[in-house]
C-alpha cells in the first residue's frame, strides 16, 4: 500500500509466513516494486486515455440517424472525410498555420534564449520570469488583447494613420490566418523559449573555450558547437508548440474570420450544433494521425540534419 516504499525496510519479524513471503517477494523484486509505485499513475492514465480513445475509435465507425446513433460499424465517416475536399483543406490549413506559427516562434525565441543563457549573468532568473509572466493571464483575454491591437480602430491602424502612412484603416490584420498565426506565436512563446534555454544552458562551456583556443571564430563556434548541442531543445520546443496548436480552435474562432477556420472548429461543430459525434470522432482521429505523421517527418528531418 505504501507508495513511497524505499529499498530498506527491515524484514518484519514474527508475522504469518505467507504475508511475509509475499511482502518479501515484492520487496526483493525491484521491478515489482517499481510497477507498484507506477500503478496509481498508470491506472489513472489508463482509464482516462486508453478507454476513451478505444471508444473514440469504435464510435468513429458509427453513424447518426436523427438524435440516435446507429451502432453498426462502417467506414462511412472515413469515406466522407476522404472524398469531401473540405476536410483535407481544413486539415492542411491547420497544419500549415501551426507549422508557420511554430517555426516563427522557435526562430524568434532562439536568440532570446541564447541571450539569456550566454549573455545574462546576474539576473538570469529575473529574465526568465519576465519572459514567462505574460502567460499567467487568461488565454481568452490574450486573444482578446490581440483584437485590440489588430482591430480596425486598433493600435496598429491608429499608429499607421497617425504616422500618415495610410489614410483609412486597413482590414488585413484582423480576421485572417495571419492574425491567428501571430496570436498563436505570441501565446506559445514561453513554451519555445524555455526548452531552448535549458538545452543552451546545459552546454559545457569548455567546448566553446577549446574551440576558441583552436582559433574558431564566434560564428564557427555557434554553427559547429552551440547550435547542434541545442538542437534537442529546439525539437522539444517544436513539439510542445506544434501539436497543441494544430488542434486549437478558440484562436481561430475569435481571430480567424471565415478563411481562418481550422479543423478544430469543425470537430467542435460536430460535437456541438451538427450533433454528429461519430463524424467528430473520425475527424479527431484523422487529425491525430496527421499530427503524428507531421511530427515523425519533422523528427526524421532533424535527424538527417544532425548527421
Amino acid at each position: 500500500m505504501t507508495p513511497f516504499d524505499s529499498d530498506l525496510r527491515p524484514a518484519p519479524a514474527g508475522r504469518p509466513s505467507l504475508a511475509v513471503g509475499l511482502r518479501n517477494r515484492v520487496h526483493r523484486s525491484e521491478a515489482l516494486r517499481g510497477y507498484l509505485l507506477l500503478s496509481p499513475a498508470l491506472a489513472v492514465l489508463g482509464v482516462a486515455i486508453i478507454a476513451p480513445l478505444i471508444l473514440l475509435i469504435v464510435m468513429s465507425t458509427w453513424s447518426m440517424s436523427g438524435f440516435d446513433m446507429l451502432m453498426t460499424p462502417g467506414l462511412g465517416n472515413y469515406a466522407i472525410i476522404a472524398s469531401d475536399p473540405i476536410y483535407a483543406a481544413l486539415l492542411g490549413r491547420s497544419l500549415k498555420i501551426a507549422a508557420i506559427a511554430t517555426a516563427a516562434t522557435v526562430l524568434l525565441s532562439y536568440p532570446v534564449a541564447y541571450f539569456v543563457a550566454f549573455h545574462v549573468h546576474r539576473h538570469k532568473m529575473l529574465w526568465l520570469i519576465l519572459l514567462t509572466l505574460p502567460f499567467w493571464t487568461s488565454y481568452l483575454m490574450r486573444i482578446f488583447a490581440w483584437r485590440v491591437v489588430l482591430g480596425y480602430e486598433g493600435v496598429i491602424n491608429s499608429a499607421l494613420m497617425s504616422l500618415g502612412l495610410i489614410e483609412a484603416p486597413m482590414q488585413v490584420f484582423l480576421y485572417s490566418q495571419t492574425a491567428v498565426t501571430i496570436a498563436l506565436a505570441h501565446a506559445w512563446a514561453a513554451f519555445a523559449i524555455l526548452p531552448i534555454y535549458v538545452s543552451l544552458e546545459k552546454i559545457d562551456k569548455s567546448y566553446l573555450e577549446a574551440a576558441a583556443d583552436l582559433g574558431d571564430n564566434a560564428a564557427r563556434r555557434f554553427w559547429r558547437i552551440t547550435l547542434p548541442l541545442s538542437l534537442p531543445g529546439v525539437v522539444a520546443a517544436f513539439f510542445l508548440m506544434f501539436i497543441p496548436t494544430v488542434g486549437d480552435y478558440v484562436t481561430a474562432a475569435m481571430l480567424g474570420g471565415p478563411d481562418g477556420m481550422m479543423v478544430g472548429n469543425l470537430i467542435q461543430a460536430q460535437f456541438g450544433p451538427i450533433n454528429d459525434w461519430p463524424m467528430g470522432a473520425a475527424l479527431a482521429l484523422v487529425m491525430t494521425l496527421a499530427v503524428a505523421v507531421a511530427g515523425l517527418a519533422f523528427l526524421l528531418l532533424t535527424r538527417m540534419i544532425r548527421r
Partner: protein
Amino acid sequence: MDVIDQLHAVRSGKLSRRAFNRSLMALGIGLTAVPLGARRALAAPEDHPTFFTWGGFDIPELFVEYQAKHGEMPNFSTFGGSEEALVKLRSGFVADVSHPCLSGVPRWVETGLFQPIDTSRLSNWPNVMPELYNADFNQTEGKFWLVPFDWGQTSITYRTDLFDLQGEESWAMLSDQRHAGRLGMLSSGGDAWWCGAIMAGVPLSEIATEDAFTRISDFMRAQRPLIRIYTDDTTSLEQALASGELVAAMTWNSSAVTLRAQDVPVAFAQPKEGALTWVCGVMLHKDAPHLDRAYDVIDSLISVPSGIFNIGTYGYGHSNMKAFDNFDEATLRGLGLSKNPIEILQAGHFMTPQSADWEARMNSTWEKIKAGF
C-alpha cells in the same frame, strides 16, 4: 525529455524552496479568500430553484418580484446555446426552470424531461400575449409546455453614417457589393439559415424542402465573399460595428440598443421582406426539486418590472403586454418593437420546429458554407 527540466529549471531550480513555500501559501490564501468573501454575500442557498439560462439573464433586475417574496436570488446555471443546454439536461442535469426557444419545444418535449406548466399558478399570466404561446405543439390538455418570456427580431443593425442606404431597408443590405468585406453575420444556423431563407426568397413554410436547401445554400455561398465575420459572440459584432470595421451586420435587437447607448449612430432595420421573429421562454423540469419556487421564478420573469428591464436595457421584447406601456412608440419602433406588439408578431416570420435530421443536415451544410465549401 528535455522538455522537462525546462520548467523545473525555471520554476524551482533557481527559486529557493522557502520562497516557493511562501508564494504557494500566499497563492492559496490570496486567491481563495477573495471569492469566499464575495460569494457569501451573493450565493443563493440550497432551498432555491435553479434557473438554467443564457449568459446575461442571471441578474437581479429580472428577479425583483422573486427577491421581494423570498429575500434572495434563485440559483443560476448558464449556457451558450440551447442545443448545448439540451445535451446537458439529457445527460442528467436537473434544473428547475430552463430557457429554450419556442421552435425547439417539440424536441425538448420529446425528451420526456419536462412537465406542462399550470398557468393558473402564475399571477402575471393574464397579461402574457397569447400570440407568443398559442401553437399546437406548445399545449397539452389546456396547459402549456413553454411560458414565453423574451422575444425579438433577428434583423440588420447598420451604421447610419457609414452605410449608404438606397431605397428601403431590406435584407439585400447584407449582400451589398459596395460594402463587401464590411458586413457581418450571426454564426449559428438557428438564425443565419432562417434569415438566409428570407434573403433567398424561400417561404419559411417550405424551408424543409429539397429546393429550399439548394436555393438557400446557393444564396449563402454567393454571399460569403462579402462577409467579414460569422460569429455568435455579440461582443465581437458590436465592437466591429462600433469601430466602423463593419457597416452592417445581422444581429438581435439588443445590439442596436447597446450600440446607441454608447453613442454609435446605428439603426435596427425593418427589412421590407420582414425580419425573423423569435420567441424564447421557460420550461419546467418534470422532477423540479423546488416546484413552488420554480413557479415564482417563472412569475417573476414574466412580471412587468422584468419586462421593463428586458425592453429598456436589453432591447428585447417581453411577453407581458403591460410592460410596453412604459415606453413611447418612437423608442419601441427603434427597437423593432411596437406599442402594439401583436402587429409585429403577425407581420414577422416565425421559426417553426424541424426534425432532428433537418437540423443536422442544415447545420452541417451551414458549417461548410461558412468555411468556404
